[in-house]
């Protein structure tokens, strides 16, 4: 397995203006700039405040169900006959996906900023559910937009004085990519301890799906200085990269500016954004978080793609061997592990982020396979 070439003297990113190298930044209407600057200041203060950290940790433990288990998928591993596959079980969190880690954090922040209403965009619905859940928990009004980010941003321009925009991925304007990464970093912090305890060593690779990329950064961040641990992001190749019907911004996009930051985008040669496609609604986004663009350029992380077909097969295989139904998003990461494991030997370890559970996808999968649910 190739080893990464990252430098141990990696710069502290993002910089003060939210840049990861040339990526990231803050590209929004002037109306929103003061709110983002205020949010950044508040966040930089609170992230170090012991009271805030204790409060966050206690909600994550008592309400969201952290820590989540690290599970050795022994039947899956045995069937593949290669590396041992460990699953970080974010699917066991309240609301069924990793999204709640971030929405609790942002809702606590919103409360400190005296905002009384939360808005969010949602693709697969997981982030929308996780946001509505914390709004109910903390007694805030809430509105969810079933659209990427345009409608949520339009609402926010008009309501910024009393509304907090809960962005669900490591995308959007600074400080969201930083903030969401830090709220999700608990995934990797736990998993790193757990895998050391279970195996006495670090994994050979961490594998996670990438739409915007929050569960991937959440897993990767704790391993960023472990140079022997390969970090692999899995993008959705949809019906195949060659068909154009995919969501692989890093594999097949170009640099551009959308939804508040500079990163790789699916776009045409004149800078118009192209529609993404993936069987997994959560990966169906034409952009990717700016830190992923930087991680790829730096060589610290690699990015591969998995098609709709492979993801559905991954879902089926994990379900039938372990009785665990992954979300279609997470099934992309599982599918890559299935591809990789047989090429490795039993001493090697693959750590897969099982970012969400797949109950929500049963209708989609049945349709895809031509199965009639009665």
């Amino acid at each position, binding site marked *: 397995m190739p080893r990464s070439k990252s430098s141990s003297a990696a710069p502290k990113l993002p910089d003060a*203006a939210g840049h990861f190298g040339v990526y990231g*930044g*803050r*590209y*929004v*209407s*002037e*109306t*929103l*700039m*003061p*709110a983002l600057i205020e949010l950044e200041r508040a966040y930089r203060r609170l992230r170090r405040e012991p009271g805030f950290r204790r409060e966050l940790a206690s909600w994550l433990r008592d309400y969201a169900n952290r820590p989540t288990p690290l599970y050795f998928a022994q039947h899956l591993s045995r069937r593949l006959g290669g590396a041992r596959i460990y699953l970080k079980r974010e699917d066991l969190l309240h609301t069924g996906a990793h999204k709640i880690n971030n929405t609790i954090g942002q809702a606590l922040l919103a409360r400190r900023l005296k905002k009384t209403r939360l808005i969010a965009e949602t693709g697969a619905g997981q982030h929308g559910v996780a946001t509505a859940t914390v709004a109910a928990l903390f007694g805030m009004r809430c509105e969810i937009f079933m659209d990427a*980010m*345009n409608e949520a*941003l*339009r609402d926010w*321009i*008009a*309501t*910024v*004085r009393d509304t907090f925009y809960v962005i669900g991925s490591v995308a959007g304007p600074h400080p969201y990519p930083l903030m969401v990464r830090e709220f999700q970093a608990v995934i990797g912090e736990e998993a790193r301890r757990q895998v050391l305890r279970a195996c006495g060593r670090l994994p050979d690779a961490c594998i996670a799906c990438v739409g915007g990329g929050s569960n991937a950064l959440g897993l990767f961040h704790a391993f960023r200085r472990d140079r022997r641990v390969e970090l692999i992001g899995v993008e959705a190749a949809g019906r195949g990269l060659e068909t154009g019907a995919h969501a692989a911004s890093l594999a097949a996009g*170009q640099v*551009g*500016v*959308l*939804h*508040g930051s500079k990163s790789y*985008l699916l*776009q045409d*040669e*004149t*800078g*118009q*954004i192209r529609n993404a496609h993936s069987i997994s609604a959560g990966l169906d986004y034409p952009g990717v978080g700016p830190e992923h663009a930087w991680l790829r350029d730096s060589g610290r992380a690699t990015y591969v793609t998995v098609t709709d077909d492979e993801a559905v097969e991954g879902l089926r295989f994990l379900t039938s061997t372990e009785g665990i139904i992954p979300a279609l998003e997470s099934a992309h990461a599982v599918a890559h592990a299935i591809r990789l494991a047989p090429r490795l030997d039993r001493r090697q370890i693959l750590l897969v982020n099982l970012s969400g559970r797949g109950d929500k996808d049963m209708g989609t999968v049945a349709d895809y396979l031509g199965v009639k649910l009665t």
Partner: protein
Amino acid sequence: MSRIAETFAALRARGQVALVPYFTAGDPDLPTTRDLVRAALAEGADAIELGVPFSDPMADGPVLQRSAARALAAGMTLPRVLELVAKLRSESTQPIVLFGYYNPFFRYGVERIAADAAAAGADGFLCVDLPPEEAGDLRAAARGAGLDLIALLAPTTPMARVRTIARVASGFLYFVSVLGVTGARAELPRELPALVRRARAVTHLPLGVGFGVGRPEQAAWIAGFADAVIVGSALARLVEEGEREAPARVASFLGGLRRAIGAAAAARTA
């Protein structure tokens, strides 16, 4: 002095306030946009904002979203917008500002768009999603090509930030009148004159007010405290409803605004 600065200086000398209509280039097609701009100039428009359509117009309300979608469906691209600018420049000396979202400009190339826009006869850029912090490249390229990069101020912009923005801006400052996306409003915020005057205290740049303007009374009110009245969605709605009669309807609407602005400006200086 840039063409934009000259235009405002001349208006100020006459005690007048600019009328600046916005048209999405290519809505519903390029020849119609050309007719619309001609009609606007004939009715006394002092400068033109030409919208470069974008697939994801995050700061626009439904009317300008539909307008951009029509233009894109008609095959509008930045090179074709530049062709239109060149045609308009051959028949008018009024300033033309390219108004849009950053990505199409970025993708075209910041140096290249500045050079090509200047060659076509455009006078400046305004990017809705490019705050001054990220605008360094385009500002330098624009300046190098003799073009202005128009900056935006919002009702939420604190005073210290108004100062910072005014220091690096050129041409004029675009004051966003309302908290929200583009689109005509029944009411404009009462505190608008105070906000504009507050900004005026720290800059010599002309201050234009846009977003939400849909009626002659509103234009007249704004002319009482600003240097330009900018109108967009109300025109896009006329284009949407008017089809072939759109240029005539736009002309009649802008004529009404022009008279209202003229009277209000005259009353202000009297």
